[in-house]
């Protein structure tokens, strides 16, 4: 019993176990809420919430105006994707606390910040064009039998090659 407790809660899980658990959770999400796992549309809504706070609210022609995505009663700040994202963050925090490994990890050098900003901007920009990130447009899209998932996967792989080249050149 103690051994099982250690295995589940303290030791890292093997990748294949995580793969099966993540799939089952994604399937449950689709069955129970009608929508599979997604992440990045939530980031767009957060950005729009900030824009609104700053006094900008002309969203004509935006992704949101054309494709929508919020149910009645949902706001840019509080909606199912936001809650899902916040929950993913809290779940990770819970896991790291259980194994007593939480620690504020400071930024080591300014170069890292540059890469973080550049990488983050590229991901955000790309995700909106492609209707999602490697969750919505890949991990949930391929199992949905939508061709965009496969096209996204190949393109993301090509991007990975470019990114790796950049990293090896400037980071190492």
């Amino acid at each position, binding site marked *: 019993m103690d051994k099982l407790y250690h295995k589940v809660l303290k030791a890292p899980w093997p990748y294949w176990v995580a793969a099966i658990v993540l799939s089952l959770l994604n399937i449950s999400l689709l069955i129970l809420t009608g929508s599979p796992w997604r992440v990045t549309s939530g980031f767009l809504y957060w950005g729009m919430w900030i824009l609104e706070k700053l006094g900008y609210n002309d969203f004509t022609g935006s992704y949101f105006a054309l494709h929508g995505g919020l149910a009645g009663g949902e706001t840019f700040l509080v909606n199912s994707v936001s809650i899902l994202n916040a929950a993913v963050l*809290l779940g990770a925090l819970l896991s790291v606390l259980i194994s007593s490994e939480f620690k504020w*990890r400071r930024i080591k050098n300014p170069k890292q910040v540059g890469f973080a900003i550049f990488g983050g901007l590229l991901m955000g920009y790309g995700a909106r064009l492609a209707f999602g990130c490697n969750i919505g447009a890949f991990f949930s899209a391929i199992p949905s039998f939508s061709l965009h998932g496969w096209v996204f996967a190949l393109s993301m792989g090509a991007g990975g090659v470019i*990114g790796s080249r950049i990293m090896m050149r400037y980071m190492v």
Partner: protein
Amino acid sequence: MTSERIEALKKRREKERNQMTNRNQNLYAWLLLAAVILLSTALLVNQSPYMWVFPIGIMLGFTLERSRFCFAAAVRNPLIVGTTKLLQAVILALMVSTLGFFILQIVTVDINNFQISEIPGSLRPVGWNTVIGGILFGTGMVIAGGCASGTLMRIGEGFTLQIVVLGAFVGGSVLSGVFHYPFWHDLLIEGRTVIYLPQLIGFFPALILQLSVLGILFAAARKLGKMR
């Protein structure tokens, strides 16, 4: 760098990390767990629209952290260090999900007469926008050292750098999703449609085709991992 050296480095880091954080954090873990259970129960009792996304999200985040699962590393590792364990796991997950989504789709819709909009899942138009978006995303993911879910997970672990990534991610989303969207929409997205494989070749052939392709990719990733 060889994969053994990477593994050795990972082990050393893990050890260092354990030494640095040998303080017991069980109290905080119990408090957070209690809060999560309380909130989940409250959502359920009130039949909140968020009653499922919250607990499932917690479990997704927990699983990602517990296993150090990272979609960015699944793409990056084969390219840089030649290890494919994570890539194999991602492909396995796609196979399991394919089966689950398929069952749900065939029980939800009338397979002889359906509308794309009725199909449960992530079905979106495909076009050059997917290609450009995918390339930008893949490049950014490797440079930032983590994708969207990975960024959320690392913030939960206490990484300050990933808060910067999240900020930039939100910024990039607004840039393309609000300010540049009319341009991209007119240029590439307007008129694009969802291409749903079962509509082209039938439900069961689509399932068999997809599982076969994923199976071949799994075997190829396995072989590549062994070769290195």
